[in-house]
């Protein structure tokens, strides 16, 4: 049931407004905090106010302007968009609190928090975009708004990483734009409101090329190998930005874009007939395993996290590419699961860096005796990535694997997933081992935790990792939204 409602527009607009106010208040700390938090809270409230309706099957939409017939800016809240919006805006609030604590001593805080709030606005725009053009617009805006955050430190290294980031993502954007234009040519519309708009009559070759263009375009942000180069370099950014890149917005925007292309532009039926997604699944599998293996060799904490993200993102791509309902469910819900797990780890990495100045894993011996709660949270997230039952990661692994079994020759992908979870154990458990068991002689429990603004968000996220895993079936949890979305896309 479609309902015309202004809230889908207000959600990005109000946080955009708050973001501008953050710039306006400049260096006045109290007001800057106020407007930063307002942006996050207002958006969260607006998004949550639509949740009951969406769960009931309502679809909120709002058309802003139409440039020419069929091309315009419009917003629409369906289950998938709602899912992405809820995850990103919930995490946004938590990250903002963390960032306020983390950036205490930093320079240029007005610029930082201003762009931080703008990112919030663009992400929700991506989530609620009704057509490919709106999606593309916000997708590009996200690139631009995150650039000042990536180069925040303004060191030569940061500037270089920023350049790399821009080159990769803007080039990706070109491919998306190309895809949009061709899609409009062939389908006569850019709408994302149905399960597939492209006609099969175009021909296999053309559709395959179009699909490849979209995959390259969105695949840059989703960090599918070999398009992942920017992500490990962007690790020079401050920890909250990394959290934003890896968990909340940027990489997820890429994965979300691929979902929209697969489910809404092509549609499951058409892609099954084309049979090209098996290549995407293969590419994702290679990325999953290869990135994990590279992660094992990284000593820098945040670089290891970066390669882990590349590997985990491909879980989502793999789940989408398998084109079975359960795999799609696993993929969608992994947006939330990966986000909470990864953000916990970034918060931990940031807290350790701020409190002790250590950035490499080999320096972490005995850190658990100094920051037991932080490292406890890390342990929960690590178990999540391994996919231990009752953590979020297990839900993903379960549905993805069951979905893979439904696909043709799917057991190959099940083996990939299980291998990956063993590899995850291989690079995350050593960190736990360093923290709690590889203790320099004479270490005693001497608690000196990070500041509460850093610790509390970390703990909240860790608790969520367990809640998402244990109570996935409780109505209102992300899984229920993901299921609604899957039922729509697969016509169940």
């Amino acid at each position, binding site marked *: 049931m479609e309902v015309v409602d202004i809230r889908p527009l207000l959600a990005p607009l109000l946080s955009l407004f708050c973001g501008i106010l953050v710039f306006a208040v400049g260096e006045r700390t109290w007001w800057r905090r106020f407007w930063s938090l307002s942006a996050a809270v207002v958006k969260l409230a607006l998004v949550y106010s639509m949740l009951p309706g969406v769960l009931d099957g309502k679809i909120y939409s709002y058309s802003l302007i139409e440039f020419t017939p069929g091309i315009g800016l419009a917003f629409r809240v369906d289950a998938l968009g709602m899912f992405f919006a809820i995850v990103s805006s919930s995490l946004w609030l938590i990250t903002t609190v963390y960032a306020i604590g983390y950036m205490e001593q930093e320079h240029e805080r007005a610029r930082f928090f201003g762009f931080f709030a703008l990112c919030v606005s663009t992400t929700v725009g991506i989530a609620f975009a009704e057509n490919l053009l709106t999606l593309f617009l916000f997708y590009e805006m996200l690139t631009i708004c995150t650039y000042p955050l990536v180069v925040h430190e303004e060191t030569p290294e940061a500037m270089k990483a920023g350049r790399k980031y821009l080159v990769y993502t803007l080039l990706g954007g070109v491919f998306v734009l190309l895809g949009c234009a061709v899609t409009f040519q062939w389908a006569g519309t850019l709408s994302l409101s149905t399960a597939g708009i492209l006609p099969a009559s175009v021909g296999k070759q053309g559709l395959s090329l179009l699909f490849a263009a979209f995959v390259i375009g969105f695949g840059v942000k989703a960090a599918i190998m070999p398009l992942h180069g920017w992500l490990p370099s962007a690790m020079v950014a401050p920890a909250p930005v990394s959290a934003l890149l890896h968990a909340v917005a940027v990489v997820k925007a890429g994965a979300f874009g691929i979902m929209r292309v697969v489910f809404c532009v092509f549609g499951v039926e058409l892609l099954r007939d084309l049979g090209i997604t098996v290549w995407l699944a293969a590419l994702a599998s290679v990325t999953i395993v290869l990135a994990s293996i590279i992660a094992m060799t990284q000593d820098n904490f945040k670089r290891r996290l970066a390669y882990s993200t590349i590997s985990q993102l491909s879980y989502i791509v793999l789940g989408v590419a398998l084109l079975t309902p359960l795999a799609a469910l696993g993929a969608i819900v992994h947006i939330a699961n990966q986000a909470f797990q990864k953000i916990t780890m970034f918060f931990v990495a940031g807290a350790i860096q701020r409190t002790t100045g250590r950035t490499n894993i080999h320096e972490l011996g005995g850190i658990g005796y100094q920051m037991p709660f932080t490292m406890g949270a890390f342990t929960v997230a690590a178990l999540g990535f391994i996919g*231990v*039952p009752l953590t979020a990661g297990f839900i993903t692994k379960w549905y993805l694997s069951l979905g893979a079994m439904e696909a043709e020759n799917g057991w190959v992908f099940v083996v990939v997933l*299980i291998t990956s979870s063993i590899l995850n154990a291989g690079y995350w458990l050593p960190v736990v081992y360093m923290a709690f*068991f590889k203790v320099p002689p004479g270490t005693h429990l001497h608690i000196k935790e990070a500041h509460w603004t850093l610790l509390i968000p970390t703990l909240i996220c860790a608790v969520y990792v367990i809640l998402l895993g244990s109570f996935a079936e409780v109505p209102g949890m992300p899984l229920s939204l993901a299921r609604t979305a899957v039922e729509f896309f697969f016509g169940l």
Partner: protein
Amino acid sequence: MSYSAILPAVVLLPMFGAGLVVPLSKVSNRARAMGITIVVGITTALVALLIPGVLNGEVYEQRLFQMTPTIWMSLRVDALGELFAITAGLLWLLALVFSFGYMADEERTNRYFAFLMLALTWTLGVALAGNLLSFLVFYELFSILTYPLVVHEQTPEAMAAGTKYIIYIIIGGGLVLLAIMGTYFLAGAQEFGGSAFLTAELDRTSLLAVFWCFIAGFGVKAALMPLHGWVPDAHPAAPAPFSAVLSGIMVAAGSFGILRVLFYVYGIELLKELGVAMPLSWIAAFTILAAAILAIPQDNLKRRLAYSTISQMGYVIFGASLLSVSSITGSLVHIANHAFMKGTLFFCAGILIKRAGIHNVSEMAGIAKRHPITMGVFTLTSLSMIGTPPLSGFTSKWYLGIGILDAEQPWYLVILLGGALLAAVYLLPIVYAAYFKEPAPIVRDLPEIEGRLEAPATMLGVVLVGAAITIILGIFAWAPGLPLSLAKLAAETLP
């Protein structure tokens, strides 16, 4: 009143106890000891309370929360689960009390006790899990969250053993997960206790693949050769009371998983049709003999006992794979009998380590004079392990033997008796040396024990209780409520 409602409490009580460890330790070590002993005592009592009902054929079930649209986290008590749960509860109580003496001069005791309590929660969960997914949840948590206990000493050897342990266990866990997902894919969500999950109509290749995945996955934990690598390293490295639990319960959890798979997932009919029981029994037979032979040259006492565990767990799988009621009874009752026997042997080893500094068999010559009670119990338990009547080890062997004859495989008796003979070869020389050999230099140099007990009363008490259980489970094996009655019932009521 229905006892079903107490099932969640049974499983969660030890977790609650784990939460008490740190606060109570702020009061005193004594308060901590009292507090968690009471919690484990209550838990075990609650488990025991279920026995009469289970023997009457009642089945208690309780759903906890929903995992997927068709699968609930659920707890269920049947005879097999009850057998494992009560064994675990009692052995835990013994290990806990023993720990107070053993851990008195160790560091990081809070961590040790907290994780020991948590491990009981996972174990009871494994025993009482109502379906495969619930089983997996507890099994995985059990596997991973016992790591801090394995490496407790944090010596280089312990750390190496811990790393080996976690690698084996995680790969095994991956295989189990693969097999469980295969089962759900083939057969959908089903609870233990109905008919067997899988049927012969399903694709034969898939059935075989899933079966061997299960065996390989659980086989890592159950120490089926050649997947046993972690066992001989982990046991000497861990603190003795945890070694007792490790051997008695943890390795048995793998065997328990295999039993659930054999009888509840596949069912006897399907196993016969697939023809997989025979190769499994060969693997088990190989394990029994090879591990026993490997045990003989081991000088480290706990390592020798670890190989003995591998061999004895082979009996459990061996009995189960013969698929006759008596052999299955023998296999099930051997889980309980072995747990208490091996637990007691490790407790004895723990006393020798703490009170005499003795780790190796070669240092034990003449030790009986200084530690008469410990070595007396060690002797008695060794005899039981070999299968001397009327001790508990004999009961298991007796039923296994009858089962072999029922299954019309008489030459398998060679393996049964060969294993017993080899057990005599690796255990009795220890006893002989302790009593009859000239004292080893290390024993000669030990200070005299004058007018005091050879070990703290709690440690000695636990060892004596262990000996008593070994005798009771042998002489009064028939008594209702003891493991044999549960094992018989379980074997007769398999789906």
